[in-house]
Every structure is written in structure tokens, then in C-alpha cells.
């Protein structure tokens, strides 16, 4: 099972002939992800890392029946590529690029909503279901198969926690990165919902940060619906007010968006609070 991706996920790489596309395709294949095709307009008929390249998603669709796409298409062309993938019938789209114009992102997400397509990102490191499928940048050896579902805004923080869990011998069902915002195709609450319904996920880890209110929305759902143990780590406790810390949305305004307010909401919802990755491990060990 796992969520979003598993052994049946058939992937196309959009923008496969670019520098990132080539390097990442190699790491996906090394992991065992079934990359069935690549798409770059004008490069149809070529081959990248053994993967056939097509001019259009529609062509790739006919011959290789993919059901997920990861896009390395440059920001100014990302919207067109996303529409193309969605119209061809792709159900899961991972937008890795940062710097896509906001109106393009809003258009893509409106289109996705209408078609029932799940979009991760933009600006996301993607998702990994260890041992089954990697659809993103997660470094393979920091993850191992197991029962803990992890959702994070930040890609790097999801690696850090994955690495700490894996070093401690605790495996993961799926690890999802959502991106740094300020617009998210998928949020924590939606992934927690998926974990809640996934029989392979026994413990849910919610990684959040200062700014905005998506962690609070996740906490509300957790309080109402989730009976699986939830462990949460919110970073930015020591953050100064009024400064964006690397993610556009990671900013404290007055008393809004503070780590404390989110930790309080999560604790009220019954989540166990950690202040470091090592403490996430300690709590999970105690939960047995």
C-alpha cells in the first residue's frame, strides 16, 4: 500500500533531457522506480539513461501507460507541461521547480482540482515509499521500509528526520515533502488523511514550520479523526519575527504563525511533540 506511490507507479519524467532531469532520472532508476518514459518537446526518439523520450505526454501515454509524472520543466514552461500531463490522464503530478509564476501555479491547481489530479509542490522534493518507489529527490540510503508515515513542508527536513529514523532502525511507509510555499498543491491535512486510511502506516509524523496555518488545519483533523499516534516537530522556535526564513511562507507576523501556536494546536489534538529529530525517535520508541 503506502500512500501516493508504490510498486505499481509508472512514471514519466517531464523535462528529462535537462541537467536536473538526467541526473534525477538516474537516481530514480537506481532506486528501482519504474520510469517508463521521458518527455521533452523536440527530443522525441532519443533515449536518456535507457528511458525512451517522447515529444508529447500523449505519445508517451499511448505506448507506456504512465500514471504519475515528475516535472523538471523550467518555470516559464511549467504550466504548459502540467496541463499537458493532466489532460493526458496523469493522476499524480510532482512539480519540483521553484520560481513558477504564481498565476501559473494557481491556474495549474485550478485545473487539477477540476480533474481530480493530485499535485505535490511546486518547489517540492517529492515523495518516497521506501522499497517501492521514489518520485523525488529523497536520498535513497536515508530511508527504509517500515510503518511510519512522514509529511513535511521542507524537503531537507524530511531527509533529516528520515535519516535519523533509519539510523535508529525505524522504517517509513511513505515520506512526503510538500514544498516551501507560498502556494501548496497538497497540504499536511490531506496527507494525514491518506496516512489515516493506509493500513501500512501505524504512526504519523507531521513536520511543520513557522508561518501560515496549514499545521493548525492538520491539527484540527487529527483531533477529530485520527486515532493512530501522531508525533510532530515544528521548526522555527528560535526564529525572529517578521523575516522570511528561506521559504516564502515561513514568517512570523506578530503572534501569528509562531511555532508555539502550532505546537499548542497539535498538542491539544493529541499529538506528541518533539523538538528535534532525535526526540521523534525517542517518542516513537516509547510508543512501541
Amino acid at each position, binding site marked *: 500500500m503506502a500512500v501516493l506511490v508504490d510498486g505499481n507507479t509508472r512514471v514519466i519524467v517531464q523535462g528529462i533531457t535537462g541537467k*536536473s532531469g538526467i541526473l*534525477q532520472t538516474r*537516481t530514480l532508476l537506481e532506486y528501482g522506480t519504474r520510469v517508463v518514459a521521458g518527455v521533452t518537446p523536440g527530443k522525441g526518439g532519443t533515449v536518456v539513461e535507457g528511458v525512451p523520450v517522447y515529444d508529447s505526454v500523449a505519445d508517451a501515454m499511448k505506448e507506456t501507460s504512465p500514471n504519475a509524472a515528475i516535472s523538471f520543466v523550467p*518555470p*516559464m514552461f511549467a504550466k504548459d507541461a502540467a496541463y499537458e500531463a493532466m489532460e493526458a490522464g496523469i493522476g499524480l503530478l510532482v512539480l519540483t521547480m*521553484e520560481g*513558477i*509564476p*504564481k*498565476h501559473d501555479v*494557481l491556474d495549474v*491547481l*485550478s485545473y487539477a*482540482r*477540476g480533474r481530480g489530479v493530485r499535485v505535490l509542490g511546486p*518547489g517540492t*522534493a517529492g515523495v518516497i515509499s521506501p522499497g517501492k518507489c521514489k518520485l*523525488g*529527490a*529523497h*536520498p535513497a540510503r*536515508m530511508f527504509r521500509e517500515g510503518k511510519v508515515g512522514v509529511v*513535511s*513542508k*521542507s*524537503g*531537507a*527536513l*524530511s*531527509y*533529516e528526520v528520515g*535519516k535519523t529514523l533509519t539510523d535508529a532502525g525505524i522504517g517509513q511507509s511513505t515520506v512526503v515533502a510538500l514544498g*516551501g*510555499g507560498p*502556494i*501548496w*498543491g497538497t*497540504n499536511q491535512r490531506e496527507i494525514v488523511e491518506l496516512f489515516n486510511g493506509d493500513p501500512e502506516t501505524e504512526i504519523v509524523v507531521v*513536520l511543520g*514550520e513557522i508561518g*501560515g*496555518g*496549514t499545521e493548525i488545519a492538520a491539527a484540527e483533523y487529527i483531533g477529530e479523526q485520527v486515532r493512530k499516534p501522531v508525533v510532530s*516537530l515544528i*521548526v*522555527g*522556535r*528560535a*526564529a*525572529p519575527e517578521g*523575516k522570511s*526564513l*528561506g*521559504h516564502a*511562507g*515561513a514568517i512570523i507576523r506578530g503572534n501569528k504563525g509562531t511555532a508555539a501556536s502550532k505546537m499548542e494546536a497539535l498538542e491539544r489534538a493529541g499529538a506528541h511533540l518533539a*523538538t*528535534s*529529530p*532525535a526526540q521523534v525517535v525517542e517518542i516513537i520508541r516509547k510508543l512501541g
Partner: protein
Amino acid sequence: MKLYEFQGKALFREAGIPVPGGAVVTAADRTGLFAPSVVKAQVLSGGRGKAGGVLLADTPEEAAKAADTILSMELKGERVQALLVEEKATIRAEYYLAVTFDGEERTPLFMASAAGGMDIETVAERTPEKILKLPVDPLWGLADYKIRAMADFLGYGDRREFAEFVRKMWKLFREKDAVLVEINPLVATDNGLMALDAKIELDDDAGPRQKALFETMSAERRRITGSAAEADTGTITYVPLDGAVGFISDGAGTGMLTLDLIRDFGGEAADFCEMGGLTSPQVMYDAMKAVFTDKPDIKSLLIVLIGGFNRMDEMAEGIVRYLEENPVSVPLVVRLCGTMEEEGKAIMKEAGLPVYDDLRTAVTDAVRFAAGGD
């Protein structure tokens, strides 16, 4: 890119949105001054009215005096370099009207309120029922029934005029790649609706396809205010702080985590410096340069790297090149793991630089070194 009011008004005029007649005045060129008029400081921060940055002038003498007063002001740390002098309007009613986006709801959003002229954040906090928030599907477009809902909420009688006004605002928001178009106040006059203020922010990510617009706005800003546009720092986020532990990360989430851990372990960070998750040796080099330039007195430098899209060989290359060209005497603590980790560690080893694997150990050592330990 945030625009000055006079720039926003120029875009309004071009879009057919009514604004008062007016002229831009600077210390060097005061020919545009007239009376009776409203003399307004041109600054990018909000709350200028409360701070005395808007004055009424009935006579040319009063206008000159108001100009002198405001041109010598500093508002929220921003020197006033230019004024917008406008005709007074006869106001029958004041409203707040804005279009922006809600990233958590993934949608463009109109906000309307009859509490115009007020600080909208205060209104939102104290009396949220006084603000109507209307999401708009960008592909479906701005539906008539939503415009009617806004007009009715504001109690504005001429729905047809209101619809035309709002449609122009929406078109401007979409076509200019704006992330905010705010009118506060929007006023009803005897001749219909008029935008008394204009706050527009353009999407920097759309810069490449709005080249002419961005160039015009930057050039105008330089010419009129004498200030350059914000420097483009690429993907690096740099925030100066007060402590002794210099610090760089290659991810915002791990950056914030490390900031917390530095404090938990008894230290204080000298800065927050984050490079973004897809970066190059040059960016690594530039990040070190940024920290050492701004904080030459740091007692240790902690570099926390965990590569997904980022390549550790490239990060190591950047670190080694910086140190070769700029020898430093403070202890360096580098935690490096992830994509191309072996290659990165080999480069560091060859340069005689130790590498950490565990974040906690790295933070502990960086804090200890900063406190004078060894």
C-alpha cells in the same frame, strides 16, 4: 516587486480605473505642486497616514510647506524621496477592495469591506464579519454573481458601474502578474467610483515574461527616488542575528531546525543563511562570503548540508574554493550528507577539512567552539 502609489496609479489609469488627477514631486523638481491638494509621501511601507505622511493643502503656500515637511520625513526607516500631489475628492463613502491570492486555499481571492480607509489587518482581527472574502477560480474567471455579492455587501447601488470597475481590477491583476492589487480607500464620489490609493505588488517570478513592465518600474524608481531596486540575491536568504555561531544551510526546514538546536544547546546564531535546495558551488561560495562579510567576528561557522537535488561534491567544491581564496581562522564545522556524499567527503578530506555526519554532534561542537572550547 512592490510598487509605489504613483506607479500603481499609472497602471490603474492605463487600465481605465479612475484615479484623482495628480503629479509626482521630488525635492529636485517641485514644479508639479498645486493647491488645493492632498500631498502624500511615496513609501513602500503601510500606515503612512497615521504617521503624518499625508497632508491637506488649501493654498500654494500650504502645499509648499506640506512638501517641505513630508520630504524631510522618515517613515518606518524609509526616507521620503518623492510625493504624489493629488486633487481632493468629494467623498460620499469609503470602501476597501483588494485582490490577492490565498496559497493555503490555492486560489485568487477578492476581499471587500465597507470599513474603508482603516488598517485592514485590524479590521480582520477585531471584526472579521466586516470583510467579505471571495475566492475566484482563475480558469472559470470572475463570475457576475460574485461581483453582485461584493456590491451588495458594500451597499454600492450602481451594480453595473461596480462590475465594470472590478473587472478592470481583475484584468490588471492577471495580465500584469500581480500578487496584490489593493485599493484602500476606494471611494464613491459624485462622479462614481475612484481609487484614492493604490498598492500593487508584482510577482518577481514572472519577471522574465514581464520584462518591459519590470524594467520600466525599476527605472522609474531609480529616477524618482534615487534608490536602487532591491539587490537580487539569487536563492540565498540571509538574515543577520545577534549571536556568535555563524551558520549556513541548504534547506529552509533544516535551517530553522538548526537555528532551534543552536539555541537549545546554549548558543546563539549570528545569522540565518539558507541557500535553497537546488544550488551550485558558486552559491555555496557566495553564502560563505555573505556570512563572513556581514559577521567578520563570528566565533565558529556551522554549515549544515543534506543533499537531495543538491550535490555534495559541488557544495564541498564551493567550501574548499572559498577557504583557499579567503583563509579563515574560526573553527569550521561542516555536516555533509546525501546526494554525491562520497565524492563530497573525498574533496573535503583532500583539503584537510573534517566532516560530520550527525547534526546534533555538529551543532554541539559549533556552539562549544563559539564559546571558546576546543
